[in-house]
């Protein structure tokens, strides 16, 4: 058999499967909808986790130390300390926020502008914003850094906001695990739906299968159209799921932007990336093929021609 006839036979089987699905539009649509819902639920959860991570990403990925100097430390000394802190190998960068800058920022963002004007002198201290290197952001390394700065005589207070970051990361980790479990369960559901649909179709075409085997059709030949049907179901369901997710993102985009604005953020809800979409379609195709294969292997073997 030449390559040309082999691909021709595949094309034939593919078009045959497509035609059969098109001839029963209602049943096909219902099956596609069930598959699409099963695929879009874990995908929506994935979107939620991705967005939650991105929206809070700045806090979660880098833990900064705020080193508050005593109020009587002069600016020159503060600058000196900044340079000293920068020498440490576990420090990525140090930003000095002078008392004046701090007051100005506070005036701008707090809404207490007028009240602050009544103050005779600036009550704020100079603050060093210390960002540790990525490899030094473990709990122990942060603690060492905190102790180091606390020991300085000019330092009043060192604040590490690591605890809530860890809690938040733990929550995300739980969500990710939930996502994996949900994805696994829904994948099983898709397999069952496609497997059952293929089983019904095999039963409906029993006579045809018998005659095909009778004239020498191999198991692979008989199985092929059913595998294509499974792949088409999987692909169609995944495309529909993609559409459902796009709709969800469209419906949520404005409310989320409003919510973010209220928190002073310009965060925008992210939809599925092309990679995500490719993974979704790939999962749909793979599940469709596998479900059809399992079903065909189980049920086609039992159909043997009787004369």
């Amino acid at each position: 058999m030449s390559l040309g006839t082999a691909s021709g036979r595949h094309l034939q089987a593919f078009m045959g499967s497509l035609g059969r699905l098109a001839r029963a539009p209602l049943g096909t649509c219902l099956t596609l909808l069930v598959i699409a819902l099963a695929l879009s639920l874990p995908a929506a959860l994935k979107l939620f986790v991705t967005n939650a991570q991105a929206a809070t990403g700045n806090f979660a990925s880098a833990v900064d130390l705020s080193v508050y100097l005593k109020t009587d430390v002069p600016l020159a000394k503060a600058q000196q300390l900044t340079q000293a802190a920068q020498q440490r190998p576990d420090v990525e960068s140090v930003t000095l926020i002078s008392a004046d800058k701090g007051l100005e920022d506070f005036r701008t963002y707090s809404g207490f502008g007028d009240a602050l004007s009544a103050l005779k002198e600036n009550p704020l201290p100079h603050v060093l914003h210390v960002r540790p290197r990525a490899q030094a952001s473990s709990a122990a390394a942060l603690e060492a850094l905190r102790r180091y700065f606390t020991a300085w005589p000019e330092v009043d207070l060192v604040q590490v906001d690591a605890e809530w970051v860890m809690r938040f990361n733990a929550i995300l980790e739980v969500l990710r695990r939930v996502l994996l479990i949900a994805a696994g369960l829904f994948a099983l559901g898709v397999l069952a739906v496609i497997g059952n649909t293929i089983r019904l179709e095999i039963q409906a075409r029993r006579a045809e299968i018998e005659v095909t085997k009778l004239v020498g059709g191999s198991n692979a030949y008989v199985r092929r159209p059913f595998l294509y049907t499974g792949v088409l179901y999987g692909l169609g369901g995944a495309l529909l799921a993609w559409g459902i997710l796009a709709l969800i993102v469209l419906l949520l985009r404005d409310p989320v932007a409003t919510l973010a604005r209220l928190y002073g953020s310009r965060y925008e809800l992210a939809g599925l990336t092309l990679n995500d979409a490719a993974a979704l379609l790939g999962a749909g195709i793979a599940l469709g093929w596998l479900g059809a294969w399992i079903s065909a292997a189980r049920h086609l073997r039992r159909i043997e021609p009787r004369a």
Partner: protein
Amino acid sequence: MISFERVSKRYANGREALSNISFNIHNGEMVFLTGRSGAGKSTVLKLIALLERPSRGAVLVAGRNTQTLKARHIAAFRRGIGVVFQDHKLLADRPVFDNVALPLAVAGTALKEIDKRVRAALDQVGLLGKERVLPQELSVGEQQRVGIARAVVSKPALLIADEPTGNLDPDLSLEVMRLFRRFQDVGVTVVVATHDMHIVREFGERVITLENGSLLGDPPLDPLPSLVATR
């Protein structure tokens, strides 16, 4: 071509369909398999087409022992045999062309070649021009000829037919048998199971007679074989 060596066949329900029968059919022979219903004719054909395997003994077809043939080779084995059924087993929802093309499609024949050979086969059975017609729009005799076209389209060396004239009137029966004779003329080995003794006498070919699963008579080239031929 076909060799039965001390073959017995007992079905799962305990019925012994064939007991200890032996015969040979040579290349290019045309043989009638006769006997009453239940005598074992169908079982013989099923054993040849590998729809069943013998309980004891050996069935050799074209040099291959059906008992030892591996499952994955069965499809290729069946492609070498053309089979015609009494109820013709056509696919009702497919036009004549698709029905006849099926054995070529499963063998992976190129589409152009399929087109040519399906037309040739339909021409041989006198149905050229009916490619797009559905089987139930044809008469019973025409349906049977579609079944024959499907059996011969891949040019098998062996053609077997189970009561191919069972539903036909005498004239149509003769016509179908003449068709089989024509295939024999071009070298095809033909085995026809039938209880229609008129036809058998008319054609004067070799007759293998079965009764209750045993070989009753197989006079090699008796022009007028009788049902009660003695062993």
